């Protein structure tokens, strides 16, 4: 029998029992929608975090002082990272393109009668390229200004608007902890990142922050940018060795700095996110399975109801294969239509979630293909038993069925 004829017949018999067909498809619809929506949410969240991490570059090393303490009891960090260490790294370690010493603390920042408490971060101009910041108006302060302890500041866009409203801050003077700083530039917005808002900060030369604002001799961290494609592990080992030597750590004692790099972050995060996505997908997959059982149930009812029809078809020459394929296609049509409907619903849900939640959602083609193939598979798998039963019916008994 021609394929499209079978499809037409299958479609007609589904239409003849609309409500029942829809109820039977509901499981598949919800299952497919769940798989697509959940994978979209999972993928979107993962992608967002990965983008943030890799926007900062994958050739970066972050050097922090080790946590202080004994036997696992952490009591603050050691105050051992100096700007001389930073200079030594730049001079002695191979393949280091640039680095930015970082020191920070929260201070009151004032302009006229406007007042805000915000993070004031001391660093060098390299910090902007390492951390992927751009200047919106004005300029970044220069290395010359860093060396001369010039009291200049670059404002995050949110801090700028908090203090200045709509007027241009560049060239104005703000007071940080009571000390005058000249605003030379405003950063471009990066958007709130959840755990901290990079738009709300003030960047000043680290020399000024250390010696004038804080009166300390240690750094919070050193951000090191290696050359593109260079061996980060080698650089990391070299830095450890250099730090041990400079901090005079005896052999056998642990390092007093911690070095992290982006690829470690990404790997660890990706693994977690993938597990999470698999979990979400599995939940959706289980509902697909339940949907398949619903279809099998209805197909068994259909076969019983249409026993006489099967007998008639056999009497006029339908082979077992003809009957089998008819009911199989009917089951597949049901799961296929359910799958497509579910796909629409899933994409719609993903879109809606993307609109109302801070997380973007990403519908990947693979998730659609996966859901549709899986639902068609469910149709074949759960349709097979009822269809086989139909095909094996004895024609005489089927004809006699009332």
């Amino acid at each position, binding site marked *: *029998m*021609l394929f499209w*004829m079978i499809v037409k*017949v299958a479609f*007609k*018999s589904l239409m*003849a029992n609309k409500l029942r067909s829809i109820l039977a498809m509901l499981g598949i619809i919800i299952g497919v929608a769940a798989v697509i929506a959940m994978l979209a949410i999972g993928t979107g969240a993962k992608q967002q975090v990965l983008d943030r991490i890799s926007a900062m570059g994958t050739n970066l090393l972050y050097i922090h002082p080790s946590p202080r303490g004994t036997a696992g009891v952490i009591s603050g960090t050691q105050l051992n990272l100096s700007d001389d260490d930073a200079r030594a790294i730049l001079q002695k370690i191979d393949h280091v393109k640039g680095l930015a010493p970082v020191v920070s603390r929260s201070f009151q920042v004032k302009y006229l009668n406007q007042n805000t408490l915000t993070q004031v971060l001391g660093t060098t101009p390299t910090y902007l390229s390492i951390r992927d910041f751009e200047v919106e108006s004005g300029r970044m302060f220069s290395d010359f200004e860093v060396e001369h302890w010039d009291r200049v500041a670059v404002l995050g866009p949110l801090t700028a608007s908090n203090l200045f409203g709509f007027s241009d801050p560049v060239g104005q003077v703000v007071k940080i902890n009571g000390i005058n700083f000249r605003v030379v530039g405003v950063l471009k917005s990066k958007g709130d990142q959840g755990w901290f808002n990079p738009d709300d900060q003030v960047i000043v030369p680290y020399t000024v922050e250390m010696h004038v604002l804080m009166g300390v001799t240690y750094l919070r961290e050193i951000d090191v940018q290696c050359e593109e494609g260079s061996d980060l592990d080698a650089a990391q080992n070299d830095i450890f060795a250099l730090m041990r030597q400079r901090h005079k750590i005896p052999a056998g004692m642990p390092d007093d700095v911690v070095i992290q790099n982006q690829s470690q972050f990404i790997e660890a995060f990706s693994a977690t996110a993938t597990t999470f996505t698999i979990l979400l997908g599995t939940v959706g997959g289980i509902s697909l399975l339940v949907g398949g059982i619903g279809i099998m149930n209805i197909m068994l009812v259909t076969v019983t109801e249409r026993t*006489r*029809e099967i*007998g*008639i*078809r*056999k*009497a*006029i*020459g*339908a*082979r*077992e*294969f*003809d009957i089998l394929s008819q009911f199989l296609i009917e089951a597949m049509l049901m799961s296929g239509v359910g799958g497509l409907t579910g796909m629409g619903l899933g994409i719609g849900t993903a879109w809606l979630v993307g609109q109302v939640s801070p997380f973007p959602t990403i519908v990947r083609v693979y998730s659609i293909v996966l859901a549709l193939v899986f639902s068609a598979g469910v149709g074949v798998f759960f349709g097979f038993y009822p269809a086989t039963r139909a095909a094996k019916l004895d*024609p*005489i008994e089927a*004809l006699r069925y009332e």
Partner: protein
Amino acid sequence: MIRAENLVKTYVLGGQVVHALDDVSVTIREGEMVAIRGPSGSGKSTLMNILGCLDRPETGQYFLAGEDVSKFSKNALAEVRNRRIGFVFQNFNLLPRMSALENVELPLHYAGRHDAVKAARVALETVGLSDRSHHEPAQLSGGQRQRVAIARALVTNPAILLADEPTGALDSKTGEEILALFKTLNANGHTILVVTHDAHVAAHCQREIYLHDGKIAAPPNDDPVAMSQIAADKELLPEAV
């Protein structure tokens, strides 16, 4: 041509053996219109199911157009039913939700024929239902439904039409019309086997095979067909002399 020899079919029902067919042999020549008659339970339907390749005999042989089909596989039998046999049932057995035309097309689709619509139209015309081709069975009268069923049976141009109590669900006038249609088809060369318990129906056929308790037997003497045949013989006698 149909030749069945020594067909045996037994059923065991509640520990009791029923000889539905007990060594039955029949021969039906091409172009004949034959009745299988007998009281209820005599094995008519069992015989028809075997002759129609819906069922297989326990022993015995069945030659359809020279081929021994009693040993055919299920699929081969399906193909024989499709191409060589046309069934007409008492309760029409049309598929609901399909138009008359689609019902008639169906055997051709199973045969994989591409001229199905055209051939189905011709068959509907033969039974005089061209103007009802897009009606569904529910929209047709009993007689019209049986005509559609007949069109479906003959659309593949089978070796034999098998009709099991074809007038059983019809009033007598409509029944007569259907029998008249069978006679016309027979006159045009179709081989027809009519299963009936009704002597009046059997009287429309050229000859009858009488079944009793699964065996071929002579019809009882008070039988109207026997009477009419005797009458016909008498009428013929003077001419023959």
